[in-house]
């Protein structure tokens, strides 16, 4: 049960409060996870991010910065947010929840049915993180979002301040498979690639797989970039090769494997179509 509610006015203060609060202290942004029935987080203290002015969306020289406490709905209503991200934001099917859930919060949760993580990884999004170093000094760093997912423990206690997207010449598309709009997804998968030349490069494929977490399909990425696959089906065949998949309420492991495979084929095909049409989304 939450025993203390801490208001802060700056990222530095928030991080300090998190540090001082010790175990059981959590940031609270939109609240859709911390207070949610069935949440695995059971905080004793919460540090509110409301007073930090971390929401808002800006664009400068083709770089879009989205404040971490920007809600899904605010992002959807912004003309600056790329269409592919809006597609992922709409995977949260409830308008009311979209008005509460924050983009930073969704990333920080690292859920295995994450709405946004696959798309942001495919988009090569970067995160601006605030942190307090061991010498007690506040600092900020700019990291690729894939690192945030790959080195979870390293960023424990960091505060996501912004999500940064480089807009031009990148194809990004995603697919989600859930029984209803609001059911947990068996698989959410996204593929991103630089399509400024005749062949896709700088490919990123990431999937949020229920029971398995957020994973990158690095072998497939490399295979596509190295031109190893004569057909999209060849690329797809590699998709679920090394993944550990489980049966659960969203579907069997066999279903997830099939869907991953079919999705990679579909997204890769869309990517090639985009190249053949000569433009990025």
């Amino acid at each position, binding site marked *: *049960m*939450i*025993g*203390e*509610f801490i*208001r802060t006015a700056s990222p530095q203060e928030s991080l300090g409060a998190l540090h001082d609060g010790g175990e059981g202290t959590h940031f*609270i942004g*939109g*609240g*859709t996870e911390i*207070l*949610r*029935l*069935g949440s695995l987080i059971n905080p004793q203290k*919460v540090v*509110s991010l*409301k007073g930090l002015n971390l929401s808002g969306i800006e664009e400068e020289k083709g770089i879009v910065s989205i404040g971490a406490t920007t*809600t899904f*709905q605010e992002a959807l209503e912004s003309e600056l947010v790329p269409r592919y991200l809006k597609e992922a934001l709409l995977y949260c*099917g*409830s*308008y*009311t*929840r*979209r*008005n*509460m859930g924050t983009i930073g919060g969704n990333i920080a949760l690292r859920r295995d049915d994450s709405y946004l993580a696959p798309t942001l990884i495919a988009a090569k999004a970067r995160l601006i993180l605030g942190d307090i170093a061991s010498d007690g000094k506040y600092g900020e760093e700019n990291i690729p979002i894939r690192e945030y997912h790959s080195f979870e423990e390293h960023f424990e206690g960091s505060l996501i301040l912004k999500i940064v997207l480089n807009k031009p010449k990148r194809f990004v598309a995603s697919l989600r*498979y859930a*029984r*209803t*709009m*609001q*059911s*947990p997804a068996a698989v959410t998968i996204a593929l991103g690639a630089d399509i400024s030349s005749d062949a896709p490069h700088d490919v990123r494929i990431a999937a949020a797989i229920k029971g398995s977490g957020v994973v990158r399909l690095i072998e497939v990425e490399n295979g596509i970039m190295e031109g190893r696959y004569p057909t999209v089906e060849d690329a797809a065949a590699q998709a679920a090769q090394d993944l550990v998949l489980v049966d*659960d*309420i969203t*579907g*069997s492991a*066999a*279903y997830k494997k*099939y*869907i991953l495979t*079919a999705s990679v084929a*579909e997204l890769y095909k869309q990517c090639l179509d985009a190249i053949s049409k000569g433009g990025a989304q």
Partner: protein
Amino acid sequence: MIVRCIVNGKNVEVNVAPHETLRKMLLSLGHFAVRDSDDGEGFAGSDTVIFNDRPLYSNLLLAAEAEGATIRTPDSLATGRELNVVQEAMIDAGVVQSAYNAPAAALLLTWLLEKKPNASRSDVAEVLSGIFIRDAGYEHYYLAVELAKEKLRSGKYSSTIAPEFRDHLKYVGKVKPKVDGRQLVAGWRSYVEDRVDPNACSMVLLRSPYAHAYITKIDTSEAEKMDGVVTIITAANCPDVFYMSAGQGNPEPSPYDRRLFNWKMRHVGDRVAAIVAETEEQAIAAREKIVVEYEVLKPIFTVEEAMAEGAPIVQNGAAEYLSGEPEGLAEYNKGVDPREGKIIYPFPLHGDNRRNIASRATGAIGDIEKGFAEADEVIERTYQTSQIQCTPLEVHLCYTKIDNDRLVIHASTQVPFHTRRIVARVCGIAENKIRVIKEKVGGGYGSKQDILVEDVAGYATWITRRPIYYRNTREEEFIANSTRHPMRITVKMGAKKGGQLTSVYMDVRANTGPYGNHCLTVPMNACSKTLPLLNCPNIAFDVTTYYTNIPPTGAYQGYGAPKGSFALMTCLAEMASVLKVDPLEMAKINHVERGFMLEILKSLGEGREGTPVPVGSCGLRKALDLGAKMIDWGKKEVCEDPNWKVGKGFAMIQQGSGLPGLDHSMCDVVMNTDGTFMVHSGGADIGTGLDTISVKCVSEVMCVEMDKVSILSGDTDNTMFDTGAYASSGTYFSGGATLKAALNLKEKVLAEAALQMEEAVEDLSLQAPGEVVSKKSGKVLPYGELIHQAVSGLGRGQLVGYGSFATEDAAIPYGAHFAQVAVNVKTGAIRVDKFYALQDAGTPINPELALTQMYGAAQKSLGHTLYEDMALDEEGRCIAANFTNYGVPMISEAPADFKAVLIDENDEFGPFGAKSISEIATNGAAPAVANAIYDAVGVWIRSWPITPEKILREMGKIT
């Protein structure tokens, strides 16, 4: 900590705890219409508020976050008695039914129209995407917004709300505001939770973690010492009374196999103990201190496991019979373990609990073997339906107290009189010591036909004399409530080459779970509400129901019919496919029509011999013809994307209107001392508009406006007996009783007027706005004057009409549901693009409510067909015990083209020609969608839910 904010335009300053949610804070400020349907899941939307001009779930926001905020709650919309335009439009569109989150929906739509006065359909869909509507469906919410826009623009509606029926009637068959619509949409006090005394005790239950186990030891001593604890009830100190939770006619066709608390646990979530304390926190803290030791037994979860030789026995107690005791019972009961309790049969249900059989039934007409021999084709298919939760937005709850040394139960129930009877049995007291007050019911759908919480709370209050509030959590709704029985149904069907059926056999194996409530009647319904659709001369069925350790089952809208319909109608389509006959033609060849004698009903009584009756009013053919035209039957549709294949399907459906020969309803109508009217109906309006039907009946007969008629219903102290709201009985039985009472009152009014006016009764009639007129003299006597003279000193007393309705006549509603689906051959994804529900409800007394009930029921059944799944793990724990994981359909799952059509077919028996409307609408989706999927991609999916994975497997893409 202190929070300062603005709530509904007023500055407030509230001291809140750090963990307190915004909803809790708003409740403390008196905004009780901010309700809770999901315990903070952020799904159902009953807790929606507008926070800094954005809709938010108040359960997911800490009160502390409200510092400086501006908040609007649903109770801000009405100004005194005056509703706003959206609230009025929602009532007029017919979406205010059980209405638990209607105030929240009104708030959202009001906010939307403030932002976008020309809000589009997609705007409405977006804003309502976070609110769960189970009763009325979403389609008429779009209409409500259109109506509100029209009213705001021009001061009046221009859209047609619903078709109207019977030109000669003024109220019946006309679109009129639901009589309780205002209080429900405004969020005025209506529900059980609104009646609870702030000082009432709280009760929580300790539940079994095991699906099958004996309690070997239970120690409550530490818990009893905890602060605030009033009492703890367990198997050790509860009455040794066996009873049945099913609220059915007495004698119940269900075994008495429940006790308040048992020594044997039969499902995860079974009751171990009830803890009553001064506060909920104290009750929960005490629950933690109860020490229970279990001897864990092997559980069984499926019919197949229950049937297996040497299977663990779920109900292994001594069998007793109140009548019809079989021979050899003493031998049968030898050596039973007393921890198993007992099973008392009010009359034989042909159960055999040593073999996990709760009940059995069988019946036949003609000679099925001869019929199969005569057939050109015989097929046999097995279909499986799954366990489905009713998911009413208002959970099961009750408030019990002592008043005048009697037990008073404020209940959210479909069966107030059965509740009284069953609680009386549990408490060991007579019925006159109990008053049950049915409050507004925030969704029942059958689950509130069972007495699931009133028994334990009532008993606790009776022994402690303390007022007690009990409320299920949403998880408890899933694990310890009543649900649709899973069934395995095998259909064997024989037919001639041209499509004429020669023989049909149904073998129904139902899974009743741990207890036998409705164990005979729900599975029988799978036959009795489907087989009589067919004019086949040779029909037989076997029904066997098994005990297992799944969460409890019971009644759910449609009862057994949706499952039987899935099996029988899909098999009919499969037969058409085998014969290469158009399924629609096959249906037309084989369906019954007016006058066909339903001999099969003789075998389909509820535990006793039924009465064959001829088919009466029947709009089935009209529904088939119109539905086929609407969906362009026979035309193959093609998607632009070659991965999507389109198919069409349909199903014939029927239900009943109450239980002729079993149900009974009573009503009285009193003329008040100013010439207005008070109706006292035993019927239980659970949001469907039954009270409005009663008021319309009285208005029609007495020639007065509806606002001159008020109604009190479902209060066992103040209304006469009614079997309750189940089996689609409301309109036919309870409405029928009101009509009889009104006609009886009319007779008395005319007789009294004849005396007062010194005229002959034959010369008198009633006319608007509420007076007696003589066609002979032209004299007029207003009701106000008539009643004043009747009750002022020397008169003959108050005028009261009495109506008792019971019948052997059946008013069977018929219909057909059509679906057009698109199936993605690569992913198995299914999209229901079109769904047309066409139903003959006789005279729809409330046409707009009839339509919305059809939408709601059809959407529910689409949920059962495609999404909803009470998945259990290998230990019997429900792993989908919340809305999100369970998968109820929301507005995003509603078909893009969704139409409900009322087929006009007057009935000779129902009040003003009315039949039932709502339950039947749950029967069509599963077979219609299954048949459409076959039409699209050539695979039959014979089990619920029909998921993409199942389609991919049937298509051979997943092995």
